[in-house]
């Protein structure tokens, strides 16, 4: 299969179409608008529905409706728009429906700015909206991974009947890289849980499933425990003998990969643990780390540390966990090596 040179947003959008996307409802916001632009053109041609919604609130509820009807549906947004999606995501999770939501992260709270960042980590991994739910969160580190995660996100969303997030960022969305695209698949929307009109059957009620499930607390806890057990994904780079291990996802993990090579060339045993799913957090990935590791360094593109907390939880705080932040100023791999080396000398 031939590689194509594609911009992150376009590649992700094309992968969504090929994953059987039936409806997209969304609202423009930089740096994800090319997803809408691409789908407005290509999705109807592929037999799907594109709606530019009047707001993110409307967009996510169109997704909710199409998902309830059994179809693969998706929206995408960034920062301020991602905040507006949370109410709908909570409803979709509560009704136990599959859907895919993309957040192309940008910097800052409030209006913020349009460049790359990783500040939505908590909102993405802690549920984000009200009540007891989690979303499976995939974090692509390349254009190819943005593509590969799309069919996976839809499959997992349907397997667990739960919304999945793809947590990308402005640089992965805007960069161009060669990609292999998946084959287009056809999906059957007539799931037994989908509303299609009774058609001779009993009527269906798509609402918070808690109304109809006995011992719901235990039921929903088990559901998320199962996901946590089975869906952790990560990449480990030279962690077995590492004296310091970097932890980073998405675009910052690429800086860290470079840092590992740089450090190793100088004889400094640096490693990297890259979470591919942010929830469930890949706790299991830490088992392969050198038991005598001196420190962890969480490298995050935000002004306040967030990922570092999950590293502390995953490691039981047996080893010091520090953070290296780069919000408005993207760190260089050299600076990361220096920060890691400083931990070793402490």
């Amino acid at each position, binding site marked *: 299969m031939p590689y194509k040179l594609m911009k992150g947003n376009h590649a992700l959008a094309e992968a969504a179409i090929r994953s059987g996307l039936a*409806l997209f409802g969304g609202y423009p916001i930089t740096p994800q608008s090319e997803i809408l632009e691409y789908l407005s053109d290509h999705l109807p041609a592929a037999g799907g529905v594109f709606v530019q919604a009047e707001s993110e*609130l409307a967009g996510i509820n*169109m997704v909710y409706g*199409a998902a309830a009807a059994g179809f693969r549906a998706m929206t995408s947004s960034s920062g301020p728009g991602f905040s507006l999606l949370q109410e709908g995501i909570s409803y979709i999770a509560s009704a136990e429906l599959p859907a895919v939501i993309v957040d192309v992260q940008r910097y800052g709270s409030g209006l913020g700015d349009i460049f790359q960042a990783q500040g939505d980590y908590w909102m993405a991994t802690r549920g984000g909206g009200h009540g007891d739910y989690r979303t499976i969160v995939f974090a692509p580190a390349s254009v190819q991974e943005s593509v590969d995660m799309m069919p996976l996100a839809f499959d997992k969303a349907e397997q667990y009947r739960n919304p999945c997030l793809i947590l990308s960022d402005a640089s992965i969305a805007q960069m161009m890289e060669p990609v292999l695209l998946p084959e287009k698949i056809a999906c059957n929307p007539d799931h037994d849980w989908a509303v299609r*009109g*009774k058609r001779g059957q009993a009527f269906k009620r798509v*609402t*918070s499933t808690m109304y109809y499930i006995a011992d719901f607390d235990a039921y929903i806890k088990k559901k998320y425990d199962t996901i946590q057990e089975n869906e952790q994904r990560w990449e480990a780079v030279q962690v077995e003998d590492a004296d310091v291990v970097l932890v980073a996802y998405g675009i910052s993990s690429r800086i860290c990969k470079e840092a590992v090579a740089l450090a190793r060339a100088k004889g400094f045993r640096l490693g990297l643990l890259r979470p591919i799913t942010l929830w469930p957090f890949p706790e299991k990935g830490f088992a392969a780390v050198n038991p005598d590791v001196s420190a962890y360094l969480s490298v995050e593109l935000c002004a306040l540390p967030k990922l570092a907390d999950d590293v502390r939880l995953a490691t039981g705080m047996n080893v010091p966990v520090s953070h290296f932040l780069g919000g408005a100023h993207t760190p260089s791999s050299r600076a990361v090596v220096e920060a890691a080396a400083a931990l070793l000398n402490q």
Partner: protein
Amino acid sequence: MNEKRTPKLLVTENKFCPGCGHGIINRILAEVLEEAGLDDMAIGSLAVGCACLMIDTFGVDWVQAPHGRAAALACGVKRVRPENFVFTYQGDGDALGIGFSETMYAALRNENITAIVVNNGIFGMTGGQMAPTTLPGQRTTTCPAGRDADLTGQPLNIINQMKHLPIGYLARGSVGSFREINKLKEYIRAAVRNQMDGCGYALVEVLSPCPTNWKMPLKAALQRLDTQVKSFFPTGEFIKEGEQIHG
């Protein structure tokens, strides 16, 4: 001999307060859907409000929308299942307050859905607070001295907002009298047919009593509905088969 016939869609007794207008509207909607043969093909997008109570008693496929978002949700369903009859059932707070944008934009896009909006002039479910449709001077728990329109604005008249739009059908009915109830059934019938004929957006606003939160016996509530409320919100058809009705 009189025969008491209950539509099969009303699978069990409703859960509304005694004398609530929602009960009558449910009955009419059930009769219309059954006579149109759509009970098996209907999918409802259900609002948050006293409408919620229908999910176990009105036997069509339902999706529970977040408060105010029923129209957007219905669009999502209809766009992927165009062969189904897709409708919203909403209160006035839901459709015209928190969900005003979603309601208006569904109409602006002329989505092929049918909206039933129950105007009882109050937030029923949450215990009688002011709604977008509360009449000037009307007392509610958040305007205990009576609605001051200089302070809170005039009640929202959704018919006036929509009557110049190129949509399929627009009407306001009432459950205030037998005469009005018969007319209302015609309006809901037309709004259902409109969608099945592919004629675009249809909305029927229904004036309805909330005896509980109006703190009135049913007779007085119906009297108020048929006089004060109806003179502020006139009933009738405003758009039919895509044509504006002047009068």
